[in-house]
């Protein structure tokens, strides 16, 4: 069985009923999807399947067929972050980081589908994602910024006095 993740095709040895989450983490070593509740209740394992956000813990890998899977590693590179990744950095939308990959993928799909910067619409789109740090305000601000088409100068973000703990400059 083959599985395409972030544009690369892998030969998979796991059984057809193994969850996509387990295949990604245990077989392919792609650890951005987190094993939170493993029953569809937290959103931390969310990946994109043909562009649509899906709980990887609920997807039997054998049911994917030729679908393309995207994890947050496939959204952008450290020196070429996707807009949603830039926004999460700029708006300080990540705290412990456990929910961040799932949040960003769901938000990416939301914006790609023409989602607006309306707070309620964003909350509805991300309603299945639990942030254990309860940092929802910053997350929604970040998604709204991308929906509006804001651009981000991350060098300035890192140099800002209030933001010194997100890396870069003291």
């Amino acid at each position, binding site marked *: 069985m083959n599985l395409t993740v972030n544009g690369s095709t892998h030969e998979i040895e796991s059984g057809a009923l193994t969850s996509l989450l*387990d295949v990604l983490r245990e077989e392919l070593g792609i650890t951005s999807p987190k094993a939170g509740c*493993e029953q569809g209740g937290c959103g931390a394992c969310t990946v994109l399947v043909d562009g649509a956000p899906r709980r990887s813990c*609920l997807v039997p890998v054998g049911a994917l067929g030729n679908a393309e899977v995207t994890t947050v590693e496939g959204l952008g590179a450290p020196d070429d972050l996707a807009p949603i990744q830039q926004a999460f950095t700029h708006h300080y939308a990540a705290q412990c980081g456990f929910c961040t990959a799932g949040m960003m993928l769901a938000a990416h799909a939301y914006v790609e589908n023409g989602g607006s910067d309306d707070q309620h619409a964003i909350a509805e789109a991300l309603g*299945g994602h639990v942030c254990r740090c309860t940092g929802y305000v910053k997350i929604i601000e970040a998604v709204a910024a991308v929906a509006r088409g804001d651009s981000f100068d991350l060098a300035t973000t890192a140099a800002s006095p209030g933001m010194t703990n997100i890396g870069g400059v003291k």
Partner: protein
Amino acid sequence: MASAPEVLFPTSPADAAAAFGDGAGVTVIAGGTIVMPEISYGRLKPGKTVVLTQAGLAGVTTDGSTVTIGAATPVSDLVGFRAPLGPCAANIADLEIRGQATVGGNVCAGEGHGAPRGDLQGALLALGATARSAGSDGERSEPLEEFLAYGAGRLLFDLSFVEPAAGAFAALDRPHTHDYTALAVSAARAADGTVRLAVTGAGTHGQRLPSAESKTSDPAVAGEAALADVTPHDDALASAWYRSKTLPVLVRRALAQLEEAS
């Protein structure tokens, strides 16, 4: 991990029915949202497994005023429908789960993990839906009520109903998007004026409210009458007491909505 189960991916409804047989010892996966946690947590060790993702059972078709919904259609495809079905589908879990969970999986889900499931049962009962299924004795179409009561060992193909003249859906608010609905009432008025009322959350599966249906001219009386049709229960979502206090309210709200929509 346990030994590898036999996993089949039928590519037509007939192949799916053949793979399913009489259903004994067979695990069926459509969207996977209910079954996969059972497997991941070791509560279910699947033997023969039939995965319906390629079985040609997904999609909604309309023929005149008759709507047919394939069992493997994602719940999200129903969100745009008029009441009661659309609002009922939109009230299930969250965006991602709705995109993955299927109509058939939801309708066939009995009570589980301290909650009534099968959110769509009430709406489809109010619509007078017909269930088409296959089993060891072949294919059969029957009212959804009968399928829910006697459908064990059958593979659901699709559900069909005639578009109502008006519909309504009233539910208790969910504290969180991942909670099942504790109680919801669906109503539909057919073109000939017949009103059907059904409830999800007042028993192990959705059920019609015939006593209330016969008194819809007075919504307050109908609401109280509905209590004669159900045996509310305690579970993790709500107490029987709370359900018995709120059922008449939801019946009244549904009938008021129906009046407005007519």
